Protein backbone atom coordinates (compact mmCIF):
# COMPACT_ATOMS: atom_id res chain seq x y z
CA UNK A 1 0.00 0.00 0.00
CA UNK A 2 2.33 2.59 -1.34
CA UNK A 3 1.05 6.10 -1.43
CA UNK A 4 2.44 9.21 -3.09
CA UNK A 5 6.18 9.07 -3.60
CA UNK A 6 6.88 6.42 -0.99
CA UNK A 7 10.02 4.39 -1.40
CA UNK A 8 9.80 0.69 -0.89
CA UNK A 9 12.48 -1.96 -0.75
CA UNK A 10 11.23 -5.43 -1.58
CA UNK A 11 13.44 -8.33 -0.44
CA UNK A 12 16.41 -6.37 -1.68
CA UNK A 13 19.58 -8.46 -1.80
CA UNK A 14 23.16 -7.79 -2.76
CA UNK A 15 25.77 -10.49 -2.99
CA UNK A 16 29.41 -10.11 -3.94
CA UNK A 17 30.34 -13.64 -4.91
CA UNK A 18 29.85 -15.66 -1.74
CA UNK A 19 29.58 -12.64 0.55
CA UNK A 20 26.13 -11.31 1.29
CA UNK A 21 26.19 -7.56 1.80
CA UNK A 22 22.45 -7.01 2.04
CA UNK A 23 20.16 -9.93 2.81
CA UNK A 24 16.55 -9.74 1.61
CA UNK A 25 15.57 -6.55 3.34
CA UNK A 26 12.06 -5.17 3.14
CA UNK A 27 11.29 -1.66 4.15
CA UNK A 28 8.84 1.10 3.45
CA UNK A 29 10.05 4.71 3.65
CA UNK A 30 7.18 7.17 3.95
CA UNK A 31 7.29 10.10 1.53
CA UNK A 32 8.57 13.29 3.10
CA UNK A 33 10.16 11.62 6.09
CA UNK A 34 13.69 11.86 7.39
CA UNK A 35 15.02 8.33 7.69
CA UNK A 36 18.38 7.28 9.07
CA UNK A 37 20.05 4.00 8.18
CA UNK A 38 22.07 3.31 11.27
CA UNK A 39 24.59 0.57 11.87
CA UNK A 40 28.23 -0.32 12.41
CA UNK A 41 30.58 -0.32 9.44
CA UNK A 42 30.11 -3.28 7.14
CA UNK A 43 26.48 -3.77 8.12
CA UNK A 44 25.23 -3.16 4.57
CA UNK A 45 23.74 0.29 5.10
CA UNK A 46 25.94 1.98 2.48
CA UNK A 47 25.34 -0.79 -0.02
CA UNK A 48 21.61 -0.39 0.52
CA UNK A 49 21.89 3.33 -0.10
CA UNK A 50 24.01 2.81 -3.20
CA UNK A 51 21.45 0.36 -4.56
CA UNK A 52 18.67 2.89 -4.00
CA UNK A 53 20.84 5.49 -5.77
CA UNK A 54 21.52 3.17 -8.69
CA UNK A 55 25.27 2.96 -8.24
CA UNK A 56 25.05 -0.70 -7.37
CA UNK A 57 22.80 -3.26 -9.05
CA UNK A 58 20.69 -5.37 -6.73
CA UNK A 59 21.32 -9.11 -6.97
CA UNK A 60 17.68 -9.80 -6.19
CA UNK A 61 14.60 -7.89 -5.15
CA UNK A 62 13.46 -4.48 -6.20
CA UNK A 63 13.29 -0.82 -5.33
CA UNK A 64 9.92 0.79 -5.85
CA UNK A 65 9.58 4.55 -5.88
CA UNK A 66 6.20 6.19 -6.25
CA UNK A 67 4.65 2.93 -7.40
CA UNK A 68 7.11 2.13 -10.17
CA UNK A 69 10.04 -0.24 -10.09
CA UNK A 70 13.22 1.78 -10.47
CA UNK A 71 15.68 -1.03 -9.70
CA UNK A 72 17.22 -1.03 -13.13
CA UNK A 73 16.94 2.63 -14.10
CA UNK A 74 20.09 4.76 -14.33
CA UNK A 75 20.60 7.01 -11.26
CA UNK A 76 19.47 10.21 -12.95
CA UNK A 77 16.18 8.67 -14.10
CA UNK A 78 15.04 7.44 -10.69
CA UNK A 79 14.07 10.67 -9.01
CA UNK A 80 16.80 10.14 -6.45
CA UNK A 81 19.92 12.20 -5.93
CA UNK A 82 22.95 11.27 -3.95
CA UNK A 83 25.21 13.34 -1.79
CA UNK A 84 28.58 11.65 -1.53
CA UNK A 85 30.57 11.16 1.62
CA UNK A 86 33.58 13.07 0.29
CA UNK A 87 31.16 15.46 -1.48
CA UNK A 88 32.72 14.54 -4.87
CA UNK A 89 32.70 18.09 -6.15
CA UNK A 90 34.35 18.50 -9.54
CA UNK A 91 37.64 20.22 -8.70
CA UNK A 92 37.99 21.91 -12.09
CA UNK A 93 34.55 23.57 -12.04
CA UNK A 94 33.37 26.63 -10.14
CA UNK A 95 30.74 26.28 -7.44
CA UNK A 96 28.10 27.53 -9.83
CA UNK A 97 29.14 25.08 -12.57
CA UNK A 98 29.24 22.25 -10.07
CA UNK A 99 25.70 22.94 -8.94
CA UNK A 100 24.36 23.25 -12.49
CA UNK A 101 26.29 20.24 -13.81
CA UNK A 102 23.19 18.11 -14.25
CA UNK A 103 21.50 20.88 -16.23
CA UNK A 104 24.52 21.13 -18.52
CA UNK A 105 24.27 17.40 -19.13
CA UNK A 106 20.65 17.91 -20.16
CA UNK A 107 21.74 20.61 -22.61
CA UNK A 108 20.19 23.55 -20.80
CA UNK A 109 21.71 26.82 -22.00
CA UNK A 110 24.28 28.67 -19.93
CA UNK A 111 22.19 31.66 -18.75
CA UNK A 112 19.34 29.45 -17.48
CA UNK A 113 21.82 27.17 -15.78
CA UNK A 114 23.48 30.03 -14.01
CA UNK A 115 20.14 31.34 -12.78
CA UNK A 116 19.01 27.95 -11.49
CA UNK A 117 22.35 27.46 -9.76
CA UNK A 118 21.96 30.87 -8.16
CA UNK A 119 18.57 29.90 -6.70
CA UNK A 120 19.96 26.67 -5.29
CA UNK A 121 22.96 28.44 -3.79
CA UNK A 122 20.61 30.86 -2.13
CA UNK A 123 18.77 27.95 -0.53
CA UNK A 124 22.01 26.75 1.07
CA UNK A 125 23.33 30.27 1.78
CA UNK A 126 26.26 30.03 -0.59
CA UNK A 127 25.43 32.83 -3.06
CA UNK A 128 28.64 34.74 -2.36
CA UNK A 129 30.80 31.79 -3.31
CA UNK A 130 29.37 31.06 -6.77
CA UNK A 131 32.62 31.74 -8.62
CA UNK A 132 35.02 29.98 -6.27
CA UNK A 133 36.60 26.62 -6.94
CA UNK A 134 35.86 23.77 -4.49
CA UNK A 135 39.48 23.89 -3.22
CA UNK A 136 38.85 27.39 -1.95
CA UNK A 137 35.96 26.33 0.30
CA UNK A 138 35.89 24.92 3.82
CA UNK A 139 34.45 21.49 4.50
CA UNK A 140 31.08 22.86 5.58
CA UNK A 141 30.87 25.07 2.52
CA UNK A 142 31.75 22.19 0.22
CA UNK A 143 28.98 20.21 1.79
CA UNK A 144 26.45 22.95 1.11
CA UNK A 145 27.55 22.99 -2.52
CA UNK A 146 27.23 19.22 -2.75
CA UNK A 147 23.75 19.53 -1.27
CA UNK A 148 22.79 22.20 -3.80
CA UNK A 149 24.12 20.06 -6.63
CA UNK A 150 22.01 17.10 -5.49
CA UNK A 151 18.88 19.18 -4.96
CA UNK A 152 18.96 20.97 -8.33
CA UNK A 153 17.68 17.79 -9.99
CA UNK A 154 14.44 18.11 -7.98
CA UNK A 155 14.74 14.65 -6.48
CA UNK A 156 11.90 13.00 -4.57
CA UNK A 157 14.45 11.21 -2.44
CA UNK A 158 17.76 12.62 -1.34
CA UNK A 159 20.34 10.04 -0.35
CA UNK A 160 23.07 11.13 2.01
CA UNK A 161 26.08 8.89 2.55
CA UNK A 162 27.60 9.73 5.95
CA UNK A 163 27.23 13.42 5.15
CA UNK A 164 28.58 14.74 8.43
CA UNK A 165 31.49 12.41 9.03
CA UNK A 166 34.08 14.67 7.38
CA UNK A 167 33.20 17.70 9.52
CA UNK A 168 34.54 18.76 12.88
CA UNK A 169 32.20 18.15 15.86
CA UNK A 170 31.02 21.75 16.14
CA UNK A 171 30.18 22.07 12.46
CA UNK A 172 28.56 18.64 12.52
CA UNK A 173 25.93 19.81 14.97
CA UNK A 174 25.27 22.96 13.00
CA UNK A 175 25.01 21.16 9.68
CA UNK A 176 22.66 18.55 11.07
CA UNK A 177 20.13 21.15 12.14
CA UNK A 178 20.53 22.66 8.70
CA UNK A 179 19.83 19.32 7.05
CA UNK A 180 16.68 18.95 9.12
CA UNK A 181 15.56 22.49 8.22
CA UNK A 182 16.11 21.81 4.50
CA UNK A 183 14.26 18.54 4.66
CA UNK A 184 11.26 20.19 6.30
CA UNK A 185 11.36 23.10 3.88
CA UNK A 186 11.53 20.90 0.79
CA UNK A 187 9.20 18.19 2.09
CA UNK A 188 11.08 15.42 0.29
CA UNK A 189 12.34 12.14 1.67
CA UNK A 190 15.87 12.16 3.07
CA UNK A 191 17.65 8.87 3.61
CA UNK A 192 20.72 9.43 5.66
CA UNK A 193 23.36 6.76 6.29
CA UNK A 194 25.27 7.12 9.51
CA UNK A 195 27.05 5.14 12.19
CA UNK A 196 26.43 7.79 14.83
CA UNK A 197 23.53 7.16 17.21
CA UNK A 198 23.41 10.82 18.27
CA UNK A 199 23.05 11.92 14.70
CA UNK A 200 20.26 9.46 14.03
CA UNK A 201 18.39 10.31 17.23
CA UNK A 202 18.66 14.03 16.58
CA UNK A 203 17.56 13.94 12.96
CA UNK A 204 15.44 10.98 12.15
CA UNK A 205 11.69 10.62 11.97
CA UNK A 206 12.47 6.99 11.48
CA UNK A 207 15.55 5.02 12.40
CA UNK A 208 16.40 1.81 10.58
CA UNK A 209 19.04 -0.11 12.51
CA UNK A 210 21.01 -2.54 10.38
CA UNK A 211 23.45 -5.23 11.37
CA UNK A 212 24.93 -8.23 9.54
CA UNK A 213 23.16 -7.38 6.27
CA UNK A 214 19.66 -7.27 7.74
CA UNK A 215 17.37 -4.74 9.38
CA UNK A 216 17.37 -5.34 13.13
CA UNK A 217 14.68 -2.84 13.98
CA UNK A 218 12.91 0.09 12.39
CA UNK A 219 10.76 2.70 14.01
CA UNK A 220 10.64 6.21 15.35
CA UNK A 221 13.68 7.47 17.20
CA UNK A 222 11.94 7.18 20.60
CA UNK A 223 10.63 3.73 19.86
CA UNK A 224 14.01 2.39 18.81
CA UNK A 225 15.80 3.99 21.71
CA UNK A 226 13.28 3.18 24.43
CA UNK A 227 12.13 -0.21 23.33
CA UNK A 228 14.96 -2.03 21.59
CA UNK A 229 13.81 -5.36 20.27
CA UNK A 230 17.15 -7.10 20.02
CA UNK A 231 20.23 -7.24 22.14
CA UNK A 232 22.24 -5.72 19.30
CA UNK A 233 19.96 -2.69 19.03
CA UNK A 234 20.04 -2.15 22.78
CA UNK A 235 23.83 -2.27 22.88
CA UNK A 236 24.35 -0.30 19.68
CA UNK A 237 21.99 2.52 20.58
CA UNK A 238 23.87 2.84 23.86
CA UNK A 239 22.50 3.90 27.24
CA UNK A 240 21.12 0.41 27.87
CA UNK A 241 21.97 -2.63 29.93
CA UNK A 242 21.13 -6.04 28.65
CA UNK A 243 20.38 -8.24 31.64
CA UNK A 244 19.85 -11.96 31.72
CA UNK A 245 17.03 -12.75 34.12
CA UNK A 246 15.46 -16.15 34.85
CA UNK A 247 12.64 -15.47 32.39
CA UNK A 248 14.78 -14.19 29.52
CA UNK A 249 16.98 -11.36 28.32
CA UNK A 250 15.88 -7.79 28.92
CA UNK A 251 17.09 -4.35 27.97
CA UNK A 252 16.85 -1.59 30.50
CA UNK A 253 17.99 2.00 30.24
CA UNK A 254 20.94 2.91 32.44
CA UNK A 255 19.02 5.77 34.05
CA UNK A 256 16.17 3.46 35.06
CA UNK A 257 18.37 1.25 37.20
CA UNK A 258 18.21 2.38 40.84
CA UNK A 259 20.28 1.58 43.89
CA UNK A 260 18.38 0.14 46.79
CA UNK A 261 18.61 -1.75 50.09
CA UNK A 262 19.86 -5.29 49.73
CA UNK A 263 16.56 -6.64 51.04
CA UNK A 264 14.48 -4.97 48.33
CA UNK A 265 16.88 -5.55 45.46
CA UNK A 266 16.07 -7.48 42.34
CA UNK A 267 19.71 -8.21 41.71
CA UNK A 268 22.75 -7.85 43.93
CA UNK A 269 26.20 -6.71 42.89
CA UNK A 270 29.35 -4.90 43.78
CA UNK A 271 30.32 -1.42 42.63
CA UNK A 272 33.46 -1.57 40.49
CA UNK A 273 33.65 2.02 39.35
CA UNK A 274 32.19 5.44 40.06
CA UNK A 275 32.41 8.13 37.42
CA UNK A 276 31.27 11.67 38.00
CA UNK A 277 29.71 13.10 34.86
CA UNK A 278 28.34 16.45 35.96
CA UNK A 279 24.58 16.19 36.03
CA UNK A 280 24.73 12.55 37.04
CA UNK A 281 27.00 9.84 38.30
CA UNK A 282 27.74 6.68 36.37
CA UNK A 283 28.12 3.53 38.41
CA UNK A 284 29.59 0.30 37.11
CA UNK A 285 28.21 -2.66 38.96
CA UNK A 286 29.30 -6.26 38.68
CA UNK A 287 26.11 -8.17 39.44
CA UNK A 288 25.61 -11.85 40.16
CA UNK A 289 26.38 -14.07 37.20
CA UNK A 290 29.27 -11.78 36.14
CA UNK A 291 26.93 -9.31 34.51
CA UNK A 292 28.20 -5.80 33.99
CA UNK A 293 25.42 -3.35 34.72
CA UNK A 294 25.66 0.39 34.37
CA UNK A 295 23.45 2.64 36.44
CA UNK A 296 23.10 6.36 35.99
CA UNK A 297 22.06 8.17 39.14
CA UNK A 298 21.27 11.89 39.40
CA UNK A 299 24.20 13.50 41.14
CA UNK A 300 22.36 15.00 44.11
CA UNK A 301 20.83 11.64 44.96
CA UNK A 302 24.19 9.94 44.79
CA UNK A 303 26.00 12.55 46.88
CA UNK A 304 23.32 12.53 49.60
CA UNK A 305 24.57 9.09 50.38
CA UNK A 306 27.88 8.50 48.53
CA UNK A 307 28.97 4.90 48.07
CA UNK A 308 32.65 4.04 47.63
CA UNK A 309 33.79 1.40 45.11
CA UNK A 310 33.89 -2.23 46.19
CA UNK A 311 30.68 -1.83 48.20
CA UNK A 312 27.96 -4.42 47.84
CA UNK A 313 24.73 -2.87 46.62
CA UNK A 314 21.29 -3.90 45.50
CA UNK A 315 19.76 -2.83 42.19
CA UNK A 316 16.12 -2.44 41.33
CA UNK A 317 13.87 -1.05 38.59
CA UNK A 318 10.26 -0.73 37.59
CA UNK A 319 8.72 -3.58 35.65
CA UNK A 320 7.63 -1.40 32.77
CA UNK A 321 11.26 -0.33 32.21
CA UNK A 322 12.20 -3.85 31.13
CA UNK A 323 12.01 -4.66 27.45
CA UNK A 324 12.40 -8.25 26.39
CA UNK A 325 15.05 -8.62 23.69
CA UNK A 326 16.07 -11.48 21.47
CA UNK A 327 19.73 -12.30 21.06
Amino acid at each position, binding site marked *: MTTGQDLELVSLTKRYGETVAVDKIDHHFRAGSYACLLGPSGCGKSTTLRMIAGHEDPTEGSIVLGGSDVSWLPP*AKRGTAMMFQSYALFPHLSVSDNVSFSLKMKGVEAATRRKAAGEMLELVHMTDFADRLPDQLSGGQQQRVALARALI*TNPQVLLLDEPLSALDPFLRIRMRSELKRLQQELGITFIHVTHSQDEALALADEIVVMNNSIIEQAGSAREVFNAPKTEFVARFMGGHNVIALPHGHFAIRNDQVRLTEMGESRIAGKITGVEYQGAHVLLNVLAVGDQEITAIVPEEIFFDNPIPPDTDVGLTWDDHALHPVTA
Partner: protein
Amino acid sequence: MRNLLKNRNVSGWMLASPLAVVLVCFLVLPIAMIIVVSFWGATEFSIYPAFLFDNYAFLFGSPVTYSVFFNTFKYAVITWGFTLVIGFTVAYFLAFHVRSLTWQIALFLLCTIPFWTSNIIRMISWIPFLGRNGLANSTLISWGVIDEPLEWLLFSDFSVILAFVHLYTLFMVVPIFNTMMRIDRSLIEAAYDNGASGLQTLTNVIIPLTKPGIMIGSIFVVTLVMGDFITVRFMSGSQSANVGRLISNDIALLQYPSAAATAVVLLSTVLLIIAVLLRFVDIRKEL
Protein backbone atom coordinates in the same frame (compact mmCIF):
# COMPACT_ATOMS: atom_id res chain seq x y z
CA MET B 1 84.26 28.43 11.14
CA ARG B 2 81.68 27.15 13.60
CA ASN B 3 79.81 30.46 13.50
CA LEU B 4 79.94 30.44 9.76
CA LEU B 5 78.24 27.03 9.67
CA LYS B 6 75.54 28.20 12.05
CA ASN B 7 74.60 30.99 9.72
CA ARG B 8 71.43 29.80 8.02
CA ASN B 9 72.29 31.45 4.74
CA VAL B 10 75.67 29.79 4.51
CA SER B 11 74.38 26.33 5.40
CA GLY B 12 71.53 26.77 2.93
CA TRP B 13 73.94 27.59 0.13
CA MET B 14 76.16 24.69 1.06
CA LEU B 15 73.27 22.25 1.01
CA ALA B 16 72.22 23.46 -2.40
CA SER B 17 75.72 23.55 -3.87
CA PRO B 18 76.25 19.87 -4.84
CA LEU B 19 73.18 19.91 -7.05
CA ALA B 20 74.08 23.34 -8.36
CA VAL B 21 77.57 22.14 -9.27
CA VAL B 22 76.16 19.11 -11.08
CA LEU B 23 73.69 21.23 -13.00
CA VAL B 24 76.26 23.85 -13.90
CA CYS B 25 78.82 21.31 -15.07
CA PHE B 26 76.52 19.05 -17.00
CA LEU B 27 73.71 21.32 -18.16
CA VAL B 28 74.57 25.00 -18.12
CA LEU B 29 78.18 24.77 -19.28
CA PRO B 30 77.54 22.44 -22.25
CA ILE B 31 74.69 24.62 -23.45
CA ALA B 32 76.75 27.75 -22.97
CA MET B 33 79.52 26.06 -24.93
CA ILE B 34 77.15 25.23 -27.77
CA ILE B 35 75.95 28.82 -27.86
CA VAL B 36 79.52 30.14 -27.87
CA VAL B 37 80.63 27.75 -30.61
CA SER B 38 77.61 28.66 -32.70
CA PHE B 39 79.22 32.07 -33.26
CA TRP B 40 82.59 30.67 -34.22
CA GLY B 41 83.95 30.68 -37.75
CA ALA B 42 84.81 27.68 -39.87
CA THR B 43 86.72 26.87 -43.02
CA GLU B 44 86.83 23.57 -44.90
CA PHE B 45 89.58 22.31 -42.66
CA SER B 46 89.50 24.37 -39.44
CA ILE B 47 87.31 26.13 -36.92
CA TYR B 48 88.36 29.29 -35.12
CA PRO B 49 86.99 31.29 -32.20
CA ALA B 50 85.21 34.42 -33.33
CA PHE B 51 81.94 36.26 -32.95
CA LEU B 52 80.31 35.89 -36.32
CA PHE B 53 76.69 35.60 -37.40
CA ASP B 54 77.73 33.66 -40.52
CA ASN B 55 76.36 30.36 -39.26
CA TYR B 56 72.95 31.81 -38.48
CA ALA B 57 72.91 33.83 -41.69
CA PHE B 58 73.63 30.68 -43.68
CA LEU B 59 71.07 28.68 -41.70
CA PHE B 60 68.23 31.16 -42.14
CA GLY B 61 69.25 31.88 -45.73
CA SER B 62 68.98 28.29 -46.88
CA PRO B 63 65.64 26.88 -48.08
CA VAL B 64 66.81 23.44 -46.89
CA THR B 65 66.55 24.65 -43.28
CA TYR B 66 62.90 25.57 -43.67
CA SER B 67 61.92 22.34 -45.35
CA VAL B 68 63.81 20.32 -42.76
CA PHE B 69 62.20 22.23 -39.87
CA PHE B 70 58.84 21.79 -41.54
CA ASN B 71 59.50 18.05 -41.77
CA THR B 72 60.48 17.94 -38.11
CA PHE B 73 57.27 19.69 -37.09
CA LYS B 74 55.27 17.37 -39.30
CA TYR B 75 56.75 14.30 -37.59
CA ALA B 76 56.23 15.87 -34.18
CA VAL B 77 52.59 16.82 -34.78
CA ILE B 78 51.54 13.56 -36.40
CA THR B 79 53.37 11.46 -33.82
CA TRP B 80 51.87 13.58 -31.04
CA GLY B 81 48.38 13.00 -32.44
CA PHE B 82 48.76 9.23 -32.64
CA THR B 83 50.52 8.80 -29.30
CA LEU B 84 47.91 10.98 -27.62
CA VAL B 85 44.98 8.95 -28.91
CA ILE B 86 46.62 5.58 -28.28
CA GLY B 87 48.18 6.66 -24.98
CA PHE B 88 44.94 8.11 -23.65
CA THR B 89 43.00 5.01 -24.64
CA VAL B 90 45.49 2.64 -23.03
CA ALA B 91 45.71 4.74 -19.86
CA TYR B 92 41.91 4.99 -19.70
CA PHE B 93 41.56 1.25 -20.05
CA LEU B 94 44.16 0.60 -17.37
CA ALA B 95 42.83 3.20 -14.96
CA PHE B 96 39.08 2.76 -15.30
CA HIS B 97 38.32 -0.65 -16.77
CA VAL B 98 40.87 -2.80 -15.01
CA ARG B 99 39.44 -3.05 -11.53
CA SER B 100 42.06 -4.91 -9.53
CA LEU B 101 45.33 -3.26 -8.63
CA THR B 102 47.23 -6.49 -9.34
CA TRP B 103 46.02 -6.56 -12.91
CA GLN B 104 46.70 -2.87 -13.31
CA ILE B 105 50.31 -3.35 -12.27
CA ALA B 106 50.69 -6.49 -14.37
CA LEU B 107 49.32 -4.85 -17.51
CA PHE B 108 51.32 -1.72 -16.85
CA LEU B 109 54.52 -3.75 -16.62
CA LEU B 110 53.53 -5.50 -19.83
CA CYS B 111 53.57 -2.09 -21.51
CA THR B 112 57.16 -1.58 -20.44
CA ILE B 113 58.47 -4.90 -21.77
CA PRO B 114 59.56 -3.37 -25.11
CA PHE B 115 61.83 -1.10 -23.09
CA TRP B 116 63.93 -4.09 -22.13
CA THR B 117 65.63 -3.82 -25.52
CA SER B 118 67.28 -0.77 -26.97
CA ASN B 119 65.55 1.80 -29.13
CA ILE B 120 67.65 0.90 -32.14
CA ILE B 121 66.82 -2.79 -31.94
CA ARG B 122 63.11 -2.10 -31.66
CA MET B 123 63.40 0.19 -34.64
CA ILE B 124 65.40 -2.20 -36.78
CA SER B 125 63.04 -5.04 -36.01
CA TRP B 126 60.44 -3.24 -38.09
CA ILE B 127 62.61 -3.52 -41.19
CA PRO B 128 62.13 -7.24 -41.90
CA PHE B 129 58.46 -6.81 -41.12
CA LEU B 130 57.80 -3.87 -43.41
CA GLY B 131 60.33 -4.55 -46.19
CA ARG B 132 59.52 -5.18 -49.85
CA ASN B 133 59.49 -8.94 -49.26
CA GLY B 134 58.77 -8.60 -45.58
CA LEU B 135 56.14 -10.22 -43.43
CA ALA B 136 53.52 -7.55 -43.97
CA ASN B 137 53.75 -7.55 -47.72
CA SER B 138 53.94 -11.31 -48.13
CA THR B 139 50.99 -11.81 -45.79
CA LEU B 140 48.88 -9.26 -47.64
CA ILE B 141 49.81 -10.85 -50.97
CA SER B 142 49.00 -14.34 -49.75
CA TRP B 143 45.62 -13.11 -48.51
CA GLY B 144 45.06 -11.61 -51.92
CA VAL B 145 44.56 -8.10 -50.54
CA ILE B 146 47.26 -6.69 -52.81
CA ASP B 147 48.88 -7.94 -55.99
CA GLU B 148 52.32 -6.45 -55.61
CA PRO B 149 54.31 -5.30 -52.58
CA LEU B 150 53.46 -1.93 -51.10
CA GLU B 151 56.46 0.31 -51.57
CA TRP B 152 55.47 2.88 -48.97
CA LEU B 153 55.60 0.53 -46.03
CA LEU B 154 59.31 0.94 -45.44
CA PHE B 155 61.73 3.81 -45.96
CA SER B 156 58.96 6.35 -46.04
CA ASP B 157 57.29 8.89 -43.74
CA PHE B 158 54.88 6.10 -42.86
CA SER B 159 57.59 3.91 -41.41
CA VAL B 160 59.23 6.84 -39.63
CA ILE B 161 56.00 7.79 -37.89
CA LEU B 162 55.16 4.17 -37.17
CA ALA B 163 58.50 3.79 -35.41
CA PHE B 164 58.06 7.05 -33.51
CA VAL B 165 54.61 6.04 -32.32
CA HIS B 166 55.88 2.63 -31.33
CA LEU B 167 58.84 4.08 -29.45
CA TYR B 168 57.18 6.94 -27.67
CA THR B 169 53.56 5.98 -26.89
CA LEU B 170 54.57 4.77 -23.44
CA PHE B 171 55.83 8.25 -22.62
CA MET B 172 52.24 9.37 -23.13
CA VAL B 173 50.67 6.42 -21.29
CA VAL B 174 52.65 6.84 -18.07
CA PRO B 175 51.83 10.46 -17.15
CA ILE B 176 48.21 10.16 -18.29
CA PHE B 177 47.73 6.93 -16.33
CA ASN B 178 49.31 8.57 -13.32
CA THR B 179 46.93 11.54 -13.46
CA MET B 180 43.92 9.31 -14.05
CA MET B 181 44.72 7.17 -11.03
CA ARG B 182 44.47 10.29 -8.90
CA ILE B 183 40.94 11.08 -10.05
CA ASP B 184 38.54 10.35 -7.21
CA ARG B 185 36.25 7.54 -8.39
CA SER B 186 33.29 9.14 -6.67
CA LEU B 187 33.56 12.04 -9.14
CA ILE B 188 32.62 9.65 -11.90
CA GLU B 189 29.70 8.34 -9.89
CA ALA B 190 28.70 11.92 -9.13
CA ALA B 191 28.69 12.69 -12.86
CA TYR B 192 26.62 9.58 -13.50
CA ASP B 193 24.27 10.58 -10.67
CA ASN B 194 23.84 13.97 -12.34
CA GLY B 195 22.72 12.32 -15.55
CA ALA B 196 25.95 12.42 -17.54
CA SER B 197 26.35 9.76 -20.21
CA GLY B 198 29.65 7.92 -20.58
CA LEU B 199 30.79 10.32 -23.30
CA GLN B 200 29.71 13.37 -21.30
CA THR B 201 31.62 12.09 -18.28
CA LEU B 202 34.67 11.65 -20.49
CA THR B 203 34.54 15.15 -21.96
CA ASN B 204 33.29 17.03 -18.91
CA VAL B 205 35.12 15.30 -16.12
CA ILE B 206 37.86 12.90 -17.14
CA ILE B 207 39.56 14.86 -19.93
CA PRO B 208 39.66 18.18 -18.03
CA LEU B 209 41.07 16.43 -14.98
CA THR B 210 43.62 14.51 -17.08
CA LYS B 211 44.96 17.61 -18.83
CA PRO B 212 48.11 17.95 -16.72
CA GLY B 213 49.07 14.36 -17.55
CA ILE B 214 48.31 14.92 -21.22
CA MET B 215 50.49 17.99 -21.15
CA ILE B 216 53.45 16.23 -19.53
CA GLY B 217 53.15 13.36 -22.01
CA SER B 218 52.98 15.85 -24.87
CA ILE B 219 56.14 17.56 -23.70
CA PHE B 220 57.94 14.21 -23.57
CA VAL B 221 56.80 13.13 -27.01
CA VAL B 222 57.35 16.47 -28.74
CA THR B 223 60.83 16.97 -27.34
CA LEU B 224 61.84 13.38 -28.06
CA VAL B 225 60.61 13.53 -31.65
CA MET B 226 62.03 16.99 -32.30
CA GLY B 227 65.46 15.95 -31.04
CA ASP B 228 65.58 12.53 -32.69
CA PHE B 229 67.88 11.77 -35.61
CA ILE B 230 68.51 8.04 -35.60
CA THR B 231 64.92 6.92 -36.12
CA VAL B 232 64.50 9.19 -39.10
CA ARG B 233 67.76 7.99 -40.59
CA PHE B 234 67.00 4.28 -40.19
CA MET B 235 63.32 4.23 -40.96
CA SER B 236 63.42 6.61 -43.90
CA GLY B 237 66.42 4.83 -45.40
CA SER B 238 68.18 8.21 -45.37
CA GLN B 239 65.52 9.59 -47.68
CA SER B 240 63.97 12.08 -45.24
CA ALA B 241 65.64 14.58 -43.00
CA ASN B 242 64.83 16.31 -39.79
CA VAL B 243 66.74 18.86 -37.78
CA GLY B 244 68.55 16.18 -35.79
CA ARG B 245 69.96 14.71 -38.97
CA LEU B 246 71.02 18.15 -40.14
CA ILE B 247 73.04 18.51 -36.96
CA SER B 248 74.48 15.00 -37.11
CA ASN B 249 75.55 15.56 -40.74
CA ASP B 250 77.31 18.77 -39.79
CA ILE B 251 79.08 16.98 -36.98
CA ALA B 252 80.13 14.18 -39.31
CA LEU B 253 81.71 16.85 -41.54
CA LEU B 254 83.35 18.42 -38.47
CA GLN B 255 81.33 21.61 -39.06
CA TYR B 256 80.85 22.19 -35.36
CA PRO B 257 79.93 25.89 -35.49
CA SER B 258 77.20 25.23 -38.03
CA ALA B 259 75.92 22.24 -36.01
CA ALA B 260 75.92 24.36 -32.87
CA ALA B 261 73.92 27.11 -34.55
CA THR B 262 71.31 24.61 -35.74
CA ALA B 263 71.20 23.11 -32.25
CA VAL B 264 70.60 26.53 -30.71
CA VAL B 265 67.73 27.21 -33.10
CA LEU B 266 66.23 23.78 -32.42
CA LEU B 267 66.57 24.20 -28.66
CA SER B 268 64.90 27.61 -28.80
CA THR B 269 62.07 26.22 -30.88
CA VAL B 270 61.44 23.34 -28.49
CA LEU B 271 61.58 25.62 -25.45
CA LEU B 272 59.11 27.94 -27.15
CA ILE B 273 56.72 25.05 -27.79
CA ILE B 274 56.96 23.92 -24.16
CA ALA B 275 56.40 27.49 -22.96
CA VAL B 276 53.24 27.67 -25.05
CA LEU B 277 52.03 24.28 -23.78
CA LEU B 278 52.60 25.34 -20.18
CA ARG B 279 50.50 28.44 -20.72
CA PHE B 280 47.51 26.18 -21.21
CA VAL B 281 47.84 23.92 -18.20
CA ASP B 282 49.27 24.30 -14.76
CA ILE B 283 51.33 21.15 -14.28
CA ARG B 284 52.85 22.20 -10.97
CA LYS B 285 50.22 20.26 -9.07
CA GLU B 286 51.44 17.07 -10.72
CA LEU B 287 55.10 17.43 -9.79
